[in-house]
């Protein structure tokens, strides 16, 4: 029997729940010649700010056991290039859900960037990034306090009618409180988690490996923590959740959905294998068969307590 991989997220039908996570898949076109992107349920584009940014100095990448640290620092061409060039180019070859990931350093900047993104027909969902740990004085600062998260969510809510998903930071003591604050402020969905703040030292030079000193940890190392947080938030909130953090296999996708995720983002695995998402989508029907699952959306939040 043909398996039904489709899911609904914020009223949008995705052909499957698999979405490359922001920052691990560029603006989509970088991989458009390597495989047909239309196998993907959605694509979350690289984090974009109002103005263009170069980002941090190199090294921006440090390898870890079962993962990596990154401190790219939101390199992007700015939201006007996003809506004028990047999204139209991707839309020309891709029919699935396009998610614009918007970040910033000040409330007004978030609002203006989201207002511009709202005017772009090709964008299906706005993912509000209040969780980037690699920029100073912005990003994660908005995602580590419930009051600030609610304030920026409400400010952006006022300028967009598109589905608004807030991407949460795991670098907090009570992620449920922040998730609820975003939901109450008008978020249509939540995405969690972004990376965990980490650090490596080169023991020969006694200097941090990353030029930025610290970076965000991602990869299989964080999967169990991300899964726990997704389960907590999905259990406590009414809005749908995108699960993200260390997902590398079809089995991880199923697990995230059982924990409560309606869609699943794959991040670091793309850096090891540009075909990771395509392969996960291809592996899902066989795994569903083994597990007796006919319709993937049936398992969302099915974990028994």
């Amino acid at each position, binding site marked *: 029997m043909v398996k039904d991989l489709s899911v609904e997220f914020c009223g949008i039908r995705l052909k499957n729940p698999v979405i490359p996570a922001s*920052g*691990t*898949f*560029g603006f989509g*076109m*970088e*991989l*458009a*010649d*390597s495989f047909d992107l239309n196998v993907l349920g959605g694509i979350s584009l*690289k984090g974009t700010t109002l103005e263009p940014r*170069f*980002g941090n100095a*190199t*090294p*921006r*990448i*440090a*390898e*870890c*056991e*079962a*993962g*990596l640290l*990154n401190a*790219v620092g939101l*390199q992007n061409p700015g939201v006007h290039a996003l809506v004028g060039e990047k999204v139209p180019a991707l839309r020309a070859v891709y029919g699935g859900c396009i998610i614009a990931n918007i970040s910033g350093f000040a409330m007004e900047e978030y609002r203006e960037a989201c207002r511009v993104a709202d005017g772009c027909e090709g964008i299906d969902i706005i993912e509000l990034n209040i969780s980037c740990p690699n920029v100073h004085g912005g990003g994660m600062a908005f995602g580590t306090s419930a009051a600030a998260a609610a304030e920026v969510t409400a400010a952006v809510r006022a300028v967009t009618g598109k589905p608004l998903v807030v991407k949460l930071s795991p670098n907090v003591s009570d992620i449920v409180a922040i998730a609820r604050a975003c939901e109450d402020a008008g978020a249509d969905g939540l995405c969690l988690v972004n990376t965990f703040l980490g650090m490596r030292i080169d023991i020969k030079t006694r200097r941090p490996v990353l030029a930025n000193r610290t970076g965000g940890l991602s*990869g299989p190392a964080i999967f169990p923590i991300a899964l726990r947080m997704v389960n907590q938030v999905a259990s406590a909130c009414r809005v749908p959740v995108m699960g993200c953090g260390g997902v590398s296999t079809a089995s991880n996708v199923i697990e995230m959905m059982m924990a409560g995720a309606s869609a699943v983002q794959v991040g*670091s695995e*793309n*850096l*090891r*294998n*540009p*075909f990771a998402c395509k392969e996960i989508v291809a592996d899902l029907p066989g795994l569903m068969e083994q597990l007796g699952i006919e319709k993937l959306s049936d398992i969302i939040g099915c974990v028994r307590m």
Partner: protein
Amino acid sequence: MPSINKIRLEILSNLPVTPNCYRLELAGEGLPAFSPGQFVQLEVPSKYLRRPISVCDCLDGRIVLIYKTVGEGTKILSQLVPGQALEVLAPLGHGFDVELCRHSALLLGGGLGSAPLYLLSKALLTAGRQVNVVLGFNTAADLVLLNEYRDLGIEPVVVTLDGSLGIKGVVTDAPLPACDFFYTCGPLPMMRAVCHKLEGPGQLSMEERMGCGAGYCYGCSIKTAAGAARVCADGPVFRKEDILW
């Protein structure tokens, strides 16, 4: 963006060529053609990220990579034996442009920078260009590829920092033959010295810690005269005037 291939290759040989450099020869079906200066992202068992290594030579269905054992990953690599399989992503990056040289090329390699220049030498000779090569090493024991260059009919000028072989000093201390275009690959200070000394046009190959190696993670971006550039995808080969020293 060019299409990326993910291929499993078998190790044919993996032998030391100096006290800390290995020559790894891999073979497999579906191996694409490589331009000189392009690289592969090589899987290292038990390591999370792949290792970017430039292609030294590509023959019918085989590639040769030369790497230095600098850390844990390359140490693991050095312990692999023939018959084992490794997955690579290839071909990656923008390589050297042979067409930029009209008649005579000067190639300046520092240490393992000599490796991609070997494939470039072959391409330049095939295109009918005259090729002069200067290779610099720390010491005589680090010398690689001399015989391979000689087999192409090229007699490289060898320079060592300690004077244990050839001219004592760095590549820019050697008498440099005239050329209409130069190509260089090696440590950054060496390439900087080369680009400052040689007045004519040239290309150089940059190195940076990479994530994906294929242009979509933006982990290896540098500032160039032409704006932000990803070393993995916009480079690793850049024109001399693009680099902000």
